[in-house]
């Protein structure tokens, strides 16, 4: 099979949410020593973009979007160790994401992380109930572009503000874009906190992240 045919088949497997087929093709690409970077970009990347288009068109719903992203991620985990000649995969940017301290609601945050990964961001998901200091330490260590902080409760959303306050205190607030999410969060709160952006849902979060990095 030519590399071009393989791209098409991979893309179809992602759109059809066919995990077995997608894995089979990923393994085939490895076995046949295809250019892995191209396989990722033009096969899996193309597939997930088509999934995104189907979402935009209202034909796909959230589970299909998430399933597509999950299959893609699993295949990427297979492929990345086989990237040839120490080539690093170029990502759209690095994001550290967490649900703030005191809040164990992680599902919304995880959806955002999955979507960002699927669209080509490198995402460090720190989980839930994470102190502001730890989020910032990770952001510095991983040299990320964006810090995403989630809060579902009116009582924990104050932690989002704390993240920005600490960044300011450390004099590094201009090094990161901070985006906020969660049920009680509004654009007004984002303004009040001095954060950089707010998205109502995971798909918007991807657009927000892209626009903040001028992509």
């Amino acid at each position, binding site marked *: 099979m030519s590399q071009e045919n393989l791209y098409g088949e991979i893309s179809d497997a992602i759109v059809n949410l066919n995990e077995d087929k997608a894995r089979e093709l990923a393994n085939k690409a490895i076995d046949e020593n295809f250019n892995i970077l191209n396989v990722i970009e033009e096969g899996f990347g193309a597939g997930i973009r088509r999934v995104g288009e189907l979402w935009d068109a*209202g034909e796909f*719903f*959230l*589970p299909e979007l998430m399933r597509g992203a999950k299959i893609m991620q699993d295949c990427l985990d297979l492929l990345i160790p086989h990237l040839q000649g120490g080539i690093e995969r170029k990502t759209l940017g690095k994001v550290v994401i967490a649900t703030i301290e*005191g809040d*164990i*609601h992680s*599902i919304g945050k995880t*959806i955002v992380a999955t979507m960002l990964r699927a669209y080509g961001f490198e995402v460090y998901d720190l989980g839930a109930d994470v102190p502001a200091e730890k989020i910032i330490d990770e952001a510095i260590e991983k040299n990320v572009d964006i810090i995403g902080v989630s809060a579902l409760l*009116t*009582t924990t*959303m*104050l932690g989002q503000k704390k993240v920005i306050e600490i960044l300011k205190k450390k004099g590094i607030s201009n090094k990161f874009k901070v985006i906020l999410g969660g*049920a*009680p969060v*509004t654009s*007004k*709160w984002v303004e009040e906190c001095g954060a950089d952006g707010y998205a109502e*849902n*995971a*798909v918007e979060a991807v657009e927000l992240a892209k626009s903040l990095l001028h992509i």
Partner: protein
Amino acid sequence: MIAKVLTEQQINKIHQTSLEILERIGVIIPHDEILSRFAERGANVDMKDKRVRISDDLVMELLSKAGKNFTFYGRNLSKKAEFGVGKRNYNTSGGQALWIDNIDNKRRYSSLNDVTTAVKFADALEKITIPGAMADPHELPVEWRCVAVAFETIKNTTKPIIFWFHDRASAKFIVDIIIALRGDEKKAQKLPMFHPLLEPVSPLSFPFNGIDLLFETARLNMPVSIGPMAQMGLSAPATIAGTLAQENAEILAGICITQLIREGIPVCYGGICHAFDMKTTQLIFSGPEQAIFSVAMTQMGKYYNLPVYINVGLTDSKRPDAQAGLECGLTLALGTAAGADIFGHMGICGVDQASSLDFLVMQSEIISYVESINREVTFEEEAFAIDIIEKVGPKGSFLDKQHTVEHFRNELWFPTLLDREYYDTWNNKGASSMEKRCRKRKEEILATHKPELLADDVTKELEEIVKKAQRNLTSSA
């Protein structure tokens, strides 16, 4: 009126599946004291992962210990909300982050002033048995916010109340408030006015603070509602059956926790699972699935002989419009017909997107309508009125008969807001919409209703408790 969706076999299957979930999969409880107590009772506890697997015997034993009925009393002891005895109660929201003054305005963050307005307002509404704070004051520090909210809520109504508890440290001051209000600890225990909600985080986990604060409220044997908002397809399986079984398992685990803190604590079964919208990517307050969930969960709760609370009478709409009327009305009608004890929370715009008194006015009318649906219809001899039918005979009218005068007021429901006018009359009176009438009624109530004041000495005493909470709980950071 009786509504059912589950057969006895299906109830049993859900029950068995929930027990299997608790024994095979278990729940995460990030509270070491509770985990130790589970371990002492022979449960399979993993202290490192904070996970407990509970056998069906232990679940059933702890469930049997739970109190199965209770009554909340207002400041005015004749204002009661009874649970587990076949009465229906209605509460307004315990608190929303955002507030809408008028439907055409944008929402803004809530303040303590909104609590005052909301509680006074619900004090005036006959059908609301338990006014809620409705607002979660954005300007107050989290550490003592709920203490201030509790006080503000008590001040503005003579009915039992609801608001959100926060943690154990603040719960201590709230316990002090009810003791001060009732006179002593014994009376405070005998006459509860409010209670906390333990909200498991689906799937199958619990929050630390929600559990920890029960150690304070248990001092007064205060009732506890257990209500996980499992979302079908998101935080529960994508099927109604699976969601019901998981939701039920989470409630049962929550009941076990309460009984390990203090045996006999009365509990309310909060069957408040929801569907999740795969298009908008948020929870659905009031789709058709909500009616099914609520009726089924009521059947499950009643299978355990518990008081039941369900999320019906709600709407996803952002205006008190046709959609709101449809969603609130249908789900509330079915939920009440299923026989739950409390419904709500009322006064919410969209999916927990703000509080709005305009919605509350509309819902108040819907409650009145639905209460009327749930009336006991009389089929006594007198009601059949065969003698009157004979007297009127073919082609006559019943209007001028004594039987009619004696019965029509009892048999007919009168709206306060719904329009039933002749077309021209309606038109001449300004051709108003339901939204407009809700707003007008809201403004009338706001302008006129004054709740009975709290005595000065009690006010001072409670103020001191709030101040003390403020002093003791203000964080140094």
